[in-house]
């Protein structure tokens, strides 16, 4: 796939065609994917997962799953050409099943629950083979389930995300998380969403088409890439809009109206 050149999503995320010479664009960055009930953004996570494994031979992924069990991801990624089971056997894929995680409500202090999750991430990273430690991606699917697991304590969730961000940005790892923006858009505590968006370096917003659902075009994506050229201290924001169609073994990205 990567020999065929980069698609619009790759370009928007900052991937270069010459992967071996350029640093990995997601190093030390936080990618936040936002979606809604009508259009799921999980495919972006699958895309990044696949890119993590195929673009670098020595990368690893720590996956915190709150929404689906491993069989689901295994099947999905397999159709995309990525074998999660063999990556796991090679010590490059750590699946932390958080489906049944529920932080204790009373008695124990609340942050016990999420603190142990963070410790698990740290432990998984420390267990990595030194070779695979160079490019690590931590994926969280998804933040709204993490909130439910934390009994609605958004402060704990924000603290947890800050910890993850510090860990990944200081070590040059990537952090990718999915959240459902329509939960917060109705006015209750919009600050939670805004804080996370502020923290993010790359924002990928997945929405349905304004005209409704269609079979040929599954939705539209807006990728906001906050690029910072640290040497000059200049920060620029690159915004790209395009449409997508999700298939079993591929995701097609194209500019609006260019679908052949």
């Amino acid at each position, binding site marked *: 796939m990567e020999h065929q050149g980069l698609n619009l999503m790759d370009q928007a995320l900052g991937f270069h065609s010459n992967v071996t010479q350029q640093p990995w664009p997601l190093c030390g960055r936080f990618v936040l994917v936002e979606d809604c009930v009508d259009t799921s953004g999980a*495919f972006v996570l699958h895309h990044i997962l696949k890119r993590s494994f195929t673009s670098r031979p020595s990368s690893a992924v720590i996956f915190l799953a709150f929404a689906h069990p491993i069989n689901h991801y295994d099947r999905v990624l397999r159709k995309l050409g990525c074998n999660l089971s063999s990556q796991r056997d090679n010590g490059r894929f750590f699946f932390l099943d958080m489906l049944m995680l529920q932080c204790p409500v009373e008695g124990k202090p609340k942050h016990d629950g999420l603190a142990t999750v963070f410790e698990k991430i740290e432990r998984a990273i420390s267990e990595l083979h030194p070779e695979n430690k160079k490019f690590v991606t931590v994926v969280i699917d998804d933040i709204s389930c993490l909130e439910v697991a934390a009994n*609605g304590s958004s402060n704990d969730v924000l603290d947890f995300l800050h910890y993850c961000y510090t860990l990944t940005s200081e070590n040059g790892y990537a952090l990718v998380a999915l959240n459902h923006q*329509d939960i917060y858009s109705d006015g209750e505590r919009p600050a939670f969403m805004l804080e996370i968006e502020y923290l993010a370096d790359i924002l990928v917003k997945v929405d349905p088409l304004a005209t*409704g*659902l269609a079979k040929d075009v599954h939705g539209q994506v807006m990728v906001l890439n906050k690029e910072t050229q640290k040497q000059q201290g200049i920060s620029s924001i690159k915004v790209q809009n395009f449409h997508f169609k*999700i298939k079993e073994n591929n995701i097609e990205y194209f500019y609006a109206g260019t679908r052949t």
Partner: protein
Amino acid sequence: MATTRTRVSSFSHNVSSLKSSQHPGLKNGPNGTTFISSGISDLDKILGGGFSLGSLVMIMEDAEAPHHMLLLRNFMSQGLLHRQPLLYASPSKDPRAFLGTLPSPGSSKDDTSHKPSHEKDLRIAWQYKKYFGEPQLNINTNNGGHHDYCNDLDLRKPLERHFFTSNNVDCVSIQNSPNLDALKDRCAEFLAQFSRNEGSISSAGRIAIQSFCSPQCKYSDMEWHMLSFIRSLKGMARSSNVVVVATFPPSLLSPSCSKRLQHMADTLLSVRAIPDEDKELAKLLTGYQDMVGLLNVHKVARLNTQVPVILDATTFSIKLQKRRFLVFECLNQAPVDGSGGSSYGNSGVCSTSTKAGPLDF
């Protein structure tokens, strides 16, 4: 569009022709999933086969009408007919009494098609697209016996008692529970019987939870508690051969809580009442007099795949054929003189407002 239609119908052909060395109540689905029937053949067709085992189906109620009960009744009854164990929870004091209202298979309907009568074929040509390809989807292998995947359930004929006096049915009342922990434990015990292993599926189960956040319940203001209940139920169900159907009234919850529940659902449906004697609607829709309500399909479960299901239509009218059989029909826009209207084929997702104002197709 024609190719799209044949693709859909060939999919349903493929599904039914797969070797089902299993139970008649189970059908092979795509991507290693297995379907069980919802009890309503039209709904099974809309969803591409039925409800996937391991999925969570949520039905958003309309506080003004009990149409969600029709769906629940058919779901529960179909399971009992297939001897699939059932766990039913409701906020009423005596949930077992509800079992007496479950429908029984009726004698099969006389007319083979559910579509409006033939005189409608004389209408304007562009409406004909709706009928194109439908006969292919209408293949009914039902003999009316108990060995069919989906029975035609007669809502006026109660289910024979022997189906639910056995130990297959467990009823739980959540009216007086201080919280959902007891129900969660009951569900966990039930689900443990059907935990999935790599072998073939020997039996499937059904969980039906009615209005779990109704205001009668003591915990109805503990939104995070209810959310974590549904989340853990979903987590447990994913690794088992059970379908969980839960209904809730979104108007009685905060918008963010309702949205969270909608995201958690694998399959999301909503039912809406339509007022009687609404002259505007009568002008807009054909067959309005026979409609009891509207069904919206917001999301269809996609387990083990990332490809979304895009339906040709997401809003259907709920009708009671001969006042007995529940059918869902595509909405048929009455010929209006040129006043736009959105395109049929790709109707947008309807809002779930409880007010039946001007409809958004």
